[in-house]
């Protein structure tokens, strides 16, 4: 009777834990405090839930893996802003003066665009080519940086251009580094996208680049699967935030992927 009570108590606590995770409380200390238990109890619970593949561990706690779900950019512009800002700061040094770089659509890439627009390039600014409306608009405010937008059909949710019309411009271009956004990312598989149109344009961009850096906050690592995957050339770099899972650097290393964690030295 004592054991059954404990199991029911554990089950109820697991349920409460999952509710908290869904609501956005993801760190061990916050979870412990909310549940009125010790941090080690929470860690034990998370270990169990992780083993049952119900949660994914992150650096400071856990998240519930989400089904793939493409959000409109207006919505994603309001979420995870600190993480995206930190990723942009970590990525900015990858842009050299005078280089021609590609910056993707999406809010994390827009954050990078903002830093590039605000930076003083001392007379030797980069040239930025983009497929995103927001990235283009942000860089249009800079007196120093020239921005080129690829033509093409605009996708309603992401505001990025896709399609054969986009390929017409890409043929002529070459980039020292391409910064790509992602709806999902897996070091072993590449970038997850909602349709083959995105994978096609991103693969083409990667093929025209000396180096590829994927900018993705840690929520993109917790996505269970994606409708389409962009295969990237080997030895790409992933720039993500400090909520990324603890074992990411190791598993990425197995795939030849370099991980840059923003906010960690």
């Amino acid at each position: 009777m004592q054991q059954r009570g404990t199991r029911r108590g554990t089950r109820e606590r697991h349920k409460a834990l999952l509710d908290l995770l869904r609501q956005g409380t993801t760190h061990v200390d916050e979870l412990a405090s909310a549940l009125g238990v010790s941090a080690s109890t929470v860690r034990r619970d998370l270990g169990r839930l992780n083993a049952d593949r119900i949660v994914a561990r992150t650096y400071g706690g856990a998240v519930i893996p989400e089904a793939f779900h493409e959000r409109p950019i207006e919505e994603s512009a309001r979420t995870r802003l600190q993480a995206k800002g930190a990723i942009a700061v970590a990525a900015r040094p990858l842009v050299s003066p005078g280089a021609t770089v590609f910056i993707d659509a999406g809010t994390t890439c827009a954050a990078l665009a903002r830093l590039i627009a605000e930076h003083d390039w001392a007379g030797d600014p980069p040239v930025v080519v983009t497929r995103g409306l927001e990235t283009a608009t942000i860089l249009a405010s800079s007196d120093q940086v020239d921005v080129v937008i690829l033509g093409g059909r605009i996708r309603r949710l992401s505001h990025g251009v896709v399609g054969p019309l986009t390929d017409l411009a890409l043929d002529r271009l070459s980039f020292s580094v391409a910064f790509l956004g992602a709806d999902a990312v897996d070091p072993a598989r590449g970038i997850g996208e909602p349709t083959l149109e995105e994978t096609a344009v991103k693969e083409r961009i990667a093929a025209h680049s000396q180096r590829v850096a994927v900018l993705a906050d840690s929520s993109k690592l917790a996505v269970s699967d994606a409708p389409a995957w962009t295969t990237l050339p080997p030895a790409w770099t992933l720039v993500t935030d400090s909520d990324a899972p603890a074992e990411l650097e190791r598993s990425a290393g197995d795939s030849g992927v370099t991980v840059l964690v923003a906010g960690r030295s």
Partner: protein
Amino acid sequence: MDRHQRLTSILDLLSESGSLSVEEAVEKLGASSATIRRDLEHLAQQQLLTRTRGGAVAATVSYDLPLRYKVGRQAPEKERIAQAVATFIRPGSIVGLNGGTTTTNVARAIAMHDDFQDHRSGTGLTVVTNALNIASELAVRPHIKVVVVGGVVRTHSYEIIGPLAERLLEAISVDLVVLGVDAVSPDRGAMAFDEGEAATNALLARHAEQVMVAADSSKLNQRAFAHILPAQAIDVLVTDAAADAETVQRFQDAGIDVIRA
């Protein structure tokens, strides 16, 4: 103020300040709060804004607007011109739009027009534009396919210029191009202040079956630095009722149909 004007005014207020309360809208537009709430619901359903507890916030990701888009309420003439252009456009057609306040109004009128609501039944529209702000506003509309031309984005403006647009325009068909201009006259045709813009506008026009110039009467018989198109290349001029009869006649003599909105 009719409903169309009120809906446009709501969107203008939102693009100025990013957010709008029901009270502000009631005060500035002289409508009841029930009417304003219905308007906000209508615009929210079309994803032109996002409802909040006391009002609404702008739907598009906000960024710095060039000064000319910030200046006050749009003149009613531009609104009437925009409605006249939207009525002229055939559902299912391919429309080119360049940048500017008049064509931005046209884009909004298109976005809200009841005729262009369904792509599958062939009544949706394809819009080809070199204006980033127009592309952003129309991109959220499910029944409008938006194509942006490639090119260099001009500093501090929303406009894409340069020869890169040509590659894309050569690969497509455009039924009607609607051009906003800085000046238009029966002898010099359409003109713009900036030669880079003029060149891209000319590119857009060259690939279109029909060329329409949308310009309020203050731009008629004026001059501007760079020539876009000669009068012979213009098919229709849409302007406001303040255009005098003699000016209208001279445009018609030059072979241009004139619509006074």
